[in-house]
């Protein structure tokens, strides 16, 4: 390697390393803050805690984090299930139909992607409320699913366009009806895209805040973000407990991300097509 190439390489390494460090610092601050007392957190923000105290975790846990965790898992799993089923079915029909009306159906579904949640929050709330679905973990999974469907439908749509049609035709010749083709041939072979969609939507729904704040008002049905937000009271905030709660909510996602990294990457690759 020439000197110039070497110095360029070092420069590139430095740039990436700096950004990586920049990314890590807040996460580091979050984690170490969770082990400090309020006073230590404010007086020695960047230092390691003098002693690792789990008191903040206990306080965070004390407001019912375990329950929030379960609720978040439930709501996320349910909504992701809805999203995958509804989006894959719809995207399949859209990708395989040549009816002009389907073009409009596609536009209608994808248009949902452009609707910002906060612009429809009130009508949405009134709708859910009128239907008597407030404070139901099932109920919140429905709007979550609705907001995940446009994106996921697009994802599936591109996947299905590239899905080898001969397989479906072979199955039709083998005696499968439309639904059978879908469930016996297409879906079993859509593993990667299902994984991608599921992971993406799981991240969104796990972190969703506003709808959960409005619709899950009972303590025992609240999800993690709302529950943690509850650590800031009317006139006071317990920052170490807040950070501990954030850590508890964040670490599972990071672990899932580390485990399922290649699915993320693959779905991003799919997006770019």
């Amino acid at each position, binding site marked *: 390697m020439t000197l110039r190439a070497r110095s360029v390489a070092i420069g590139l390494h430095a740039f990436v390393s700096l950004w990586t460090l920049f990314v890590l610092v807040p996460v580091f601050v979050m984690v170490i803050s969770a082990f400090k007392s309020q006073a230590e957190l404010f007086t020695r923000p960047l230092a390691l805690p003098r002693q690792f105290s789990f008191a903040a975790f206990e306080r965070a846990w004390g407001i019912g984090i375990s329950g929030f965790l379960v609720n978040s898992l439930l709501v996320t799993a349910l909504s992701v299930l809805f999203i995958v089923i509804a989006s894959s079915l719809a995207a399949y029909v859209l990708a395989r139909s040549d009816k002009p009306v389907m073009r409009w159906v596609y536009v209608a579904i994808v248009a949902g992607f452009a609707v910002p949640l906060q612009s429809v929050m009130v009508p949405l709330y009134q709708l859910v409320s009128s239907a008597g679905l407030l404070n139901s973990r099932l109920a919140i999974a429905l709007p979550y699913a609705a907001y995940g469907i446009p994106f996921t439908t697009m994802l599936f749509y591109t996947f299905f366009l590239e899905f080898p049609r001969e397989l479906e035709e072979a199955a039709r010749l083998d*005696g499968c009806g439309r639904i059978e083709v879908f469930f016996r041939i297409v879906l079993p072979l859509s593993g990667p895209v299902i994984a991608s969609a599921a992971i993406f939507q799981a991240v969104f729904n796990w972190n969703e805040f506003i709808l959960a704040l409005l619709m899950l008002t009972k303590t025992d049905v609240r999800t993690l973000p709302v529950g943690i937000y509850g650590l800031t009271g009317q006139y006071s905030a317990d920052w170490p407990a807040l950070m501990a709660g954030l850590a508890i909510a964040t670490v599972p996602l990071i672990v899932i991300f580390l485990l399922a990294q290649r699915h993320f990457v693959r779905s991003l690759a799919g997006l770019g097509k």
Partner: protein
Amino acid sequence: MSHLEVRDVVKRYGQLTVLSGVSFAAEKGEFVVMVGPSGCGKSTLLRSIAGLEEIAEGSVSIAGRNITQAEPSDRGVAMVFQNYALYPHMTVAQNMGFALKVARRPKSEINAAVTRAAEILRITEHLAKYPKALSGGQKQRVAIGRAITRAPEVFLFDEPLSNLDAALRSQMRIELSRLHRELGATMLYVTHDQTEAMTMADRIIVMNGGNIEQIGSPLELYNRPATRFVAGFIGSPRMNFISAYVIETVGRSVSFSFGLELPPLKLEFAPGETLPAVGDAVILGIRPEALGDSGEVHLADAEVTVVEALGRETLVYSDAHALRTTDSESLDGYFAQLVPSQSDKKLGQHVSLWADRSAFVVFAADGTTLHDASPAHAHYK
């Protein structure tokens, strides 16, 4: 009534007509090959027969049953796809037995059918494998095996060998022919490769632009092409085409001119053949293998420009300067000449192109032959 009958099938995609009233029939046990350039509608026709495409007009019947509206699986057809279309999530055995499983046939019956098909295709040892563990040739066998287990009235092949390499392809050709003999089944086979068509077919259907140009046995098509298109498409290397016009007709003998400075060519027409009128523009065709150093007619003097030694044969292209071939696909208007031996012709060497009169075929300006030919719609006219 024929085993497979296709009548006046019309297929459109929006404004575009891909099949404009196609009719043909195949007898039971016949191996029919549909051939034509890409986009000619041969695959669409095959898929229409399979029920994978809806047709706008016309009808399809198999074994005397009108199946125009039937579901693909109810038509008594099985199809082998170009890229095999094996289900990646099923083993070879499951792939082959899937149709029977969907039809809820008993396990024993499925097993028996799969075992038998596997034996015929000699893939028994692969039955437990998944498709991704197989070679291209093996995959194609499995795809065929999947068709066999269904015991269809008609086998449909959609360019099944085009993904295989040359050696494997010729091997599979022979194998398919053997299979056809053993099963005695009606087979409809689509390809763009005329060698496959010539070697395997009982009859060939040549398609072009959504129409059937000619139907006939391989040698009929070679010897008596109905149109200039068929003449050009069947036979390799391609036939040489030369533009000419009629300058004189005396009885059944017609003189053609290629231009002022070139000697005219006089051909005899058989009784019953259409005679062109004086002044008509025509296309004369002469196959490369019919051109030689000697013959009844001296066509032109030329200069050798390309020599391709093929081993036993030699393909020579030569430039006749004043006389050029008209086919846009041929090399710079050079004449192709297939010499049935190893040739010592050198580049730049001067040669004379000779041929027998009977080797010429004459096409009217619209491309139809003026000679007797097997008609395109022989069964219905």
